[in-house]
């Protein structure tokens, strides 16, 4: 074995005091945070009635339920389920499109390079934030009160809650657009509306189209759950079958949702690639 060379650590210590003698404050920070997080976790577990007995019992039940789920079997209601799935997809597509159409003009009002005045932008942005702060399920409850039970309430719920999200995303896309085109239109004597139509829109439309397609995919998932409160689609069937403990049908419905989401995912990523792919590669 070769002998270790003598290293004068005292010299290194004096040269890099931060490495060898970190102040107590920075050394203690991470363990303190971890201990506090752990303490809060234990407090939470106690507060929320977690007990090993309940846990064990529940897992046993869950195991039994899983056994009952195999094999997935729609029984005689396959046509009804397919129709419900179609309803869910319709809700997702229509809700997202409506939201995008409504959000486009509003997002212009929230973009810094279109409306320079912070006083005008601020209320628009805050109201978009408020709309986003309310979950889609809550919007579904509100719309059920207005237009009655059924998928139409679901469409409106998704449209409103996505309106908030799109307003923010679109305005960010608009703020990220290149100024040169807009200035070019202005220099050739275009009005502010011309600037938006010919300067901004060609730049932001592909980005917006990509976001809309992505949201259609994620809304397929949201649309499956708003049925739970009565706003149509496959969620209604799922909640019903869970309530009457028809586990084979439940597992079949869950499989249907998984397949539908995967299919929409595939289609929308192909379309997204067709729209913005070339640009992104170049």
């Amino acid at each position, binding site marked *: 074995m070769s002998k270790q060379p003598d290293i004068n650590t005292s010299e290194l210590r004096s040269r890099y005091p931060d490495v060898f003698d970190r102040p107590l404050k920075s050394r203690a920070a991470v363990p303190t945070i971890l201990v506090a*997080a752990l303490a*809060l*976790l234990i407090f*939470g577990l106690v*507060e*929320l*009635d*977690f007990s090993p007995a*309940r*846990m064990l*019992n*529940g*897992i046993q*039940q*869950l195991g039994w*339920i899983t056994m009952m789920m195999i094999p997935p079997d729609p029984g005689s209601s396959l046509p009804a389920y397919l129709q419900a799935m*179609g*309803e869910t*997809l*319709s*809700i997702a*597509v*229509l809700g997202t*499109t409506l939201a995008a159409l409504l959000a486009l003009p509003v997002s212009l009002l929230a973009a810094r390079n279109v409306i320079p005045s912070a006083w005008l932008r601020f209320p628009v942005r805050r109201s978009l*934030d*408020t709309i986003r*702060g*309310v*979950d889609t*399920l*809550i919007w579904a*409850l*509100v719309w059920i*009160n*207005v*237009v*009655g039970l*059924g*998928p*139409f309430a*679901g*469409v*409106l719920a998704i449209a409103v809650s996505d309106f908030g999200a799109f307003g923010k995303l679109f305005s960010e896309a608009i703020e990220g657009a290149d100024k040169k085109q807009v200035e070019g239109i202005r220099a050739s004597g275009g009005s502010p509306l011309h600037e938006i139509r010919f300067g901004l829109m060609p730049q932001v439309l592909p980005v917006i189209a990509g976001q809309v397609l992505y949201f259609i995919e994620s809304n397929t*998932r*949201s649309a*499956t*759950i708003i049925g*739970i*409160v009565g706003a*149509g689609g496959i969620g209604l069937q*799922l*909640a019903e079958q*869970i309530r009457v*403990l028809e586990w084979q049908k*439940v597992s079949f419905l*869950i499989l249907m*949702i*998984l397949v539908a*989401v*995967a299919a929409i995912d595939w289609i929308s990523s192909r379309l997204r690639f067709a729209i913005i792919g070339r640009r992104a590669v170049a």
Partner: protein
Amino acid sequence: MPAAVSILPSQQLAALNDAYRKAVSRRRLRTVLSVAACVVVLFVAAIGAEVNVATFIEKIGNFFSYFDRIFTLESGVRVWNDISEWFWGWDKWLKLLGETVLISYVGTVVGALLAFCLNFLAAENTAPSRWLRFVVKRFMEFCRTVPDIVFALIFVIAFGLGPMAGVLAIAIHCVGALGKLYGEIVENIDMKPVEGIRSTGASWIDCMRFAVLPQVSAGFASYTLLRFEINVRGASVMGFVGAGGIGQELVVAVRKFYYSDVSAILLMIIVTVFVIDISTGWLRGRLFGKEARS
């Protein structure tokens, strides 16, 4: 100022104009066709979703009057004239809101711990074996594709009504969502430290602890905070299916037309979500500098 514009002979000009017109008309045709396809899809979707424009126009007044009603007390005055009457149940609601935040906290931490254990098995550069990686990835995909409220519905039956089902549902969903994000961070690390540690004869766990973890911990913490924020929103509706938190009160108020309660509870939820958004944003900014905030 007279500008010299050279005018091409009309024969040449006609050919150029023709080519231009052809190119434009081809593009126009494509736009028209894709718009038509969109309209057809939307039309089919509108039939599928039982859209009824007449009902919508007839009932849209209800939407605005609903907001009018939820901001009116039973005595007929506006809510802000009598705050104590408006927030009559504030102590109960605050307790339930606390429970909601706690549900999302415990769910996020449990989910993050599980995702932390699993993601090293799922990332391409650290996975010890190929089939294990495949199994773990499919499992995480399943966890994040099934909506958390569906898990909650099933857990309510298995574990009984109460916040426990909500916590577990959020935790399961969190494993899928965070596991994927964590795995992506791990796949982007610099592999040189790992090789360095491995060359000293360290085991797989040592490699993860001393080479991978220091590179990824900041990113992990940032994503976990973001997830916590999302889960607070999710936990606020867990009560709809009986899985604890403020959602139960809200759904009862909506269904039984306790209008002013609806606005009071909604306002409390929105304020809580805002406060948590802002504080986690601030925390992420403090911990990881400005670039991690987006």
